[in-house]
């Protein structure tokens, strides 16, 4: 077992992990971040998306040991002092959440995009979410919610 310090949503957590534990395993099962979902386990669905140093990754394909020294953000870390992030508000307003399973990943990917590119085109938004599968909405409301966030903050 290895001792690692994981910085999640600006807090440090000391955990003991096995070499084969993925970041997803540790975030969800050991640290209780149930906003990090279990989907396919193969990096194809995006349900386990977290931000690592601001970049969205599939946490099921990253070893927990590799997250040492990195800044990890999960969807529950986007709200500040109980106030939702504008993206989260727009997702609710535009009906971009049905079962909610893809939502943490979608919101994180959108946040990473807007942090890098505050004025994306709709095409750029669609490319950014192309690694996150949604089985409910058909993606339209998700794209609209993100574009609405872009338009409102400008």
């Amino acid at each position, binding site marked *: 077992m290895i001792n690692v310090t994981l910085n999640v949503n600006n807090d440090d957590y000391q955990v003991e992990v096995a070499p084969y534990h993925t970041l997803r395993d540790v975030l969800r099962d050991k640290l209780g971040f149930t906003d990090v979902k279990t989907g396919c386990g*193969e*990096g194809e669905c*995006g349900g386990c998306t977290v931000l690592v140093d601001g970049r969205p990754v599939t946490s099921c394909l990253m070893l927990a040991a590799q997250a040492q020294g990195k800044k990890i953000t999960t969807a529950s870390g986007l709200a500040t002092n109980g106030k939702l992030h504008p993206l989260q508000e727009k997702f609710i307003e535009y009906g971009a959440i049905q079962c909610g399973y893809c939502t943490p990943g979608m919101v994180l990917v959108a946040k990473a995009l807007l942090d890098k590119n505050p004025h994306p085109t709709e095409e750029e938004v669609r490319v950014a979410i192309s690694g996150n599968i949604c089985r409910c909405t058909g993606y339209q409301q998700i794209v609209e919610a993100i574009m609405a966030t872009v338009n409102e903050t400008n």
Partner: protein
Amino acid sequence: MSKENGLFRPMEYFKPISVEEAVKLLAQYGEKGAAIAGGTDVLAMKDPRIEVIIDITNLGLNYIKSDRQGLRIGATTTLADIETSPVLSNSPYNIIARAAHKVGSPLIRNLGTIGGNLCNASPSADTPPPLLALGAKLTLVSSRQSREVPLDEFFAGPFRSIKGHDELLTEIVVPPLSPRTGTSYQWLTKISGIDESLVAVAACVVFDGKGEVIKDARIGLISVAPTPMRARKAEEMLRGKEASDGLVEIVAKIVAEETRPRSRADYRRDMSAVLAERTIKEAIARAKGTTK
């Protein structure tokens, strides 16, 4: 906890801080050790034979450099960094960036590396065709030696390469571009998004000093043979000739004849000719500067 798939349970994790240290570990553990950078193939495959993880992300192999000696890409450079690199854009090297953009999804590209894509040695890997077309060589390092292997000698079979268990891929080296070089990379996929290419072709065409005769041509393909391949007979037919649509159409058919597809063979062969024609024509136009 994680998806049990043949019980992937490595019990040791190392994070060496030098290539020397890394290759010593690879030599020590042989087949039981796995080098891991982004982990997007290693953790997706979950090979139960892996007992030791050797994390190679701290070896300083994350760079893209271009000078008169050519292009050097560190093996653990992420596909996302390659996709957006200003070093590659606005140059015939940009087919490498296009290939990087093709791999997986934005999430996978933030983790996955060009070295990983090559060492996984899939017959459908997205980065080989442009690198084959550009004449890339790989630097393989072990405790015993360092060697440079042309990429077209690297692949041995589906998911197999000639890289030894004690060797680490450190760098991809692409020769400097001759003037009047044009490149192109095009593909067909099964469905959109994350899916593999059904057929993909990359072409690199170099004209002579007067810009009339084709001095050199290289054509790389994936998903049409057990390994990424070059269409050498077709290349030979282009060399020393003046470019014409008629010549390209004939050469494209030769490309198709050189393929050895396993499944959906007829369709893949037909599409190899279609994509070969398109990419050779586009490479020629770009070499002549008539299109971007």
